[in-house]
């Protein structure tokens, strides 16, 4: 049973009560919230995710709740809570949805030491995946959202998960976080995609969340083999251009962007090395999404 099978009244009641229990790839989450204004958009963002029954183990019990005391009425705030702990300072209440997504990312990063977690987007075509590690502002999420709306499967726009035993990528298929100019770019590029209303003045600027495609969520538990590592960089006016990257430079890119490489030690080193060996590695400059998509289609087609 999927989240979309719940009526809006049922969804609201569960969210405000015992919580919505759902699976996002390898993680089971229980979401609770006493902030009714996020309910409708949250239901749309997670519409395709499977609900899990009450007997299943839950990895993260998270909640977004209103601020304490006067903060309910004076410049209202939201608090992120995981397993009864508040790891962050509260944020303005209108940032509740982005806060939930940032908080879930934090949970995965903080608690998942059985997999290699890389700060990178990843998408797949068939069983082959492209990893897109890049610093903020490089156009990573924009490119990821565009690819997902042109037939690529979303694994994750923020955290790429690599199994230590098989080297395969695991999908999360959670909402894509779009920032600033990329919000309107993706609205125009993919008018059918669901985007939340923009939230202004966050630490990352204006943020909107894009719902993952149903195909991505349905296939979230299907692993993908890393086939390409592409370091994207948006540059206004640039022609789309892939440039081969040495495996040593690619290794450093993945290691630098890995959240738990040092914690995993030798296992992290081997996992990064294995990933680099499996991938063709490139840097990629682009400005126009259609050109970028064509390059990725060519990349995927060349190996079939």
């Amino acid at each position: 049973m999927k989240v979309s099978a719940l009526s809006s009244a049922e969804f609201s009641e569960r969210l405000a009560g015992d919580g919505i229990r759902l699976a996002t790839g390898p993680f089971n989450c229980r979401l609770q919230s006493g902030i009714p204004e996020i309910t409708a958009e949250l239901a749309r963002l997670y519409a395709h995710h499977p609900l899990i029954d009450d007997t299943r183990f839950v990895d993260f019990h998270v909640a977004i709740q209103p601020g304490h005391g006067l903060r309910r009425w004076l410049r209202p705030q939201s608090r992120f809570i995981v397993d009864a702990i508040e790891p962050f300072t509260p944020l303005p209440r209108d940032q509740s949805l982005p806060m939930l997504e940032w908080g879930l990312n934090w949970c995965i990063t903080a608690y998942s030491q059985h997999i290699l977690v890389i700060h990178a987007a990843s998408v797949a075509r068939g069983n082959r995946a492209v990893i897109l590690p890049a610093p903020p502002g490089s156009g990573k999420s924009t490119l990821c959202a565009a690819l997902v709306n042109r037939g690529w499967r979303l694994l994750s726009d923020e955290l790429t998960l690599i199994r230590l035993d098989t080297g395969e990528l695991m999908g999360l298929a959670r909402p894509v976080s779009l920032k600033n100019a990329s919000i309107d770019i993706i609205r125009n590029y993919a008018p059918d995609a669901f985007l939340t209303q923009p939230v202004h003045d966050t630490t990352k600027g204006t943020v909107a969340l894009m719902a993952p495609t149903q195909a991505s969520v349905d296939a979230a538990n299907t692993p993908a083999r890393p086939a390409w590592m592409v370091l994207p960089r948006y540059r206004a006016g640039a022609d789309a251009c892939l440039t081969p990257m040495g495996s040593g430079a690619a290794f450093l890119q993945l290691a630098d962007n890995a959240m738990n490489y040092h914690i995993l030690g030798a296992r992290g080193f081997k996992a990064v090395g294995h990933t680099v060996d499996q991938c063709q590695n490139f840097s990629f400059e682009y400005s126009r999404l259609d050109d970028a998509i064509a390059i990725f289609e060519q990349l995927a087609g060349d190996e079939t």
Partner: protein
Amino acid sequence: MPSVGIRYAACDALLDALPSILWKSVDEGWVRFDPHAGETLLLAPVTRFILDQLSIPGCQLSEDALIQAVLQEEPDADPAECGTQVRTALEALLDARLIQATSH
């Protein structure tokens, strides 16, 4: 800056870490990972060669001796180019604090 009259030797930290160092061959040379220091370095082949030469307890070698060691491995190499590569490698290893320079 490496110069005449100076000898190079491994830092204690390098020798202590030797048993646990992991290496991976890559297009540009080698990736060296020290799990205890949490340090990952990308080394050119000649840089690893020099590091290996110096990774013997008590070993101290001059720049000339290292150049000769490289030329012995690669007899066809241009000595001037080889000298440049060795000096670059020594600077990289000094910056990474894997080796130290001592005056004699």
